[in-house]
């Protein structure tokens, strides 16, 4: 046995935390990203500008910088949250910007006539977004959003730097005892690859089900 039962348990705990962070931040970023896109295409100028600023900010600031700011600077401002929720929130708002950009390209695929028809039928802005624009947009950007989700899963590894005991962090500490970095980091790499494959395959299945053939 190359690795002790205890170490294996630590690695599995870490994998659990990684999956928890990826799932919650994944769902959260799709929700927030959708709201941002809705604001981005709304007729209200201030909402449009706010959504634009949001997307630009989070796309142009490195995730690691955001994580360090959230973990070390917010407590200095009097806001202290446990580490895992902090990381989930940061990943959610960060990846939401990418979801919003992907979804916006989906909005551009919705025919202008459909939007005008919705308005002609008397649907309000919120109603046309909800029943006409957003559902169709989602169906044309399944694959791009899947890629954002894969990036999100990989980005959870950065949480190791700010004290979250996820997979990478556990590999660090197990490696400290066993001193075999190549073996452990390669294995961890394969696990991350498996997570990405699961997301990729799921995306493919969903895409085949919902894609709109034009």
């Amino acid at each position: 046995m190359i690795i002790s039962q205890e170490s294996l348990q630590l690695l599995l705990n870490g994998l659990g935390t990684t999956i928890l962070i990826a799932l919650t931040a994944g769902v959260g970023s799709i929700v927030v990203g959708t709201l941002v896109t809705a604001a981005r295409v709304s007729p209200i100028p201030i909402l449009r500008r706010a959504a634009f600023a949001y997307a630009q900010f989070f796309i142009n600031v490195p995730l690691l910088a955001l994580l360090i700011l959230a973990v070390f600077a917010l407590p200095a401002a009097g806001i202290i949250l446990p580490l895992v929720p902090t990381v989930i929130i940061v990943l959610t708002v960060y990846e939401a910007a990418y979801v919003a950009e992907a979804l916006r390209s989906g909005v551009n695929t919705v025919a202008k006539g459909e939007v005008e028809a919705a308005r002609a039928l008397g649907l309000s802005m919120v109603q046309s977004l909800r029943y006409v624009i957003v559902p169709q947009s989602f169906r044309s950007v399944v694959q791009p959003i899947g890629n954002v989700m894969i990036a999100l899963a990989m980005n959870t590894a950065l949480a190791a730097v700010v004290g979250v005991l996820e997979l990478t962090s556990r590999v660090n500490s197990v490696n400290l005892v066993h001193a075999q970095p190549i073996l452990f980091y390669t294995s961890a790499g394969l696990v991350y690859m498996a997570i990405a494959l699961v997301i990729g395959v799921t995306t493919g299945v969903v895409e085949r089900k919902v894609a709109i053939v034009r």
Partner: protein
Amino acid sequence: MFTSVSRRSIVGIVAASAALALAGCSGGAGLPGDLPGAGADAASAAVLKDAPVASAAQILPGSTMEAIKNRGKLIVATALDAPLVSQQDPLNPENVTGMDAELAKLLATYILGEPKVQWVPSSAETREAMLANGTVDVVMSTYTITTKRAEQISFAGPYFTSGLAVAVKADNTTIGGIDDLAGKNVIVQTGSPGVTQMPEKQPSATLVPFATTPQGVQALVQGRGDAYVQDYVLLSSQAANNKDIKIVGLPFTEEPYGIGIKHDNTQFKDFINTWLKAVQDGGQWNQVWESTLGTVTDSDAPKPPAIGSVPGS
């Protein structure tokens, strides 16, 4: 109300960012004048002036020593961000000071006759791989000798004994040492012995690992943990600069630091051990300690550990 809170938050964030930047300076990239042990340059030069140099007969043909001599420089992996241990001068990256760094220069002098060292930043994740694939000649970076590690690489030394200690916020009166940490949140540094030692000493404590020592100190000050368990030497250099934290109790482990080399390179290991003996007998070891770690403690120079005295060395 809302505006006043948010304004204060923004001021707080800006202040904290500045504080982080400063913490980064004192920990990783400060001006040499700001650091404890500054002025070590002169001391370093004095030590190197009469440092021992190996005789031609000791540089065996075909050995690692000969390869280093032919190359003209010693390649050393070390941390580069640890004040008093191995701290890189950002304005002059060639200049690395601290206990490990000065010893590395002495070793280079022993082989080459001059302190020519190429510094490679090392982390706990990469040390063994860098030795195994020959990227570096030696790892000198508060590298604790363990029997498990000795299966992958070889250790010369030990050349120094340190230990883990407990730091708490300066106003904390309930924690007096390792015995009071049961059930507490304890900050440790990723890749440090604290990660593996804490679960043995206090199984009910929850570990909160941070990547660097300044980050760990910041997290302690902000209340992310009740205590920070870290190497006594590193805590001392932080506590000397930071009035918000204090060290409680004495070191509760013995960490023998070794010089990591490629596995089973017995020739090179014997050679380094011979050099270690020479700098201990010659007084250079004491001089190095006094100009680095010795600057933040009142006690006299410790007696260097006996070479080969711990399992794995």
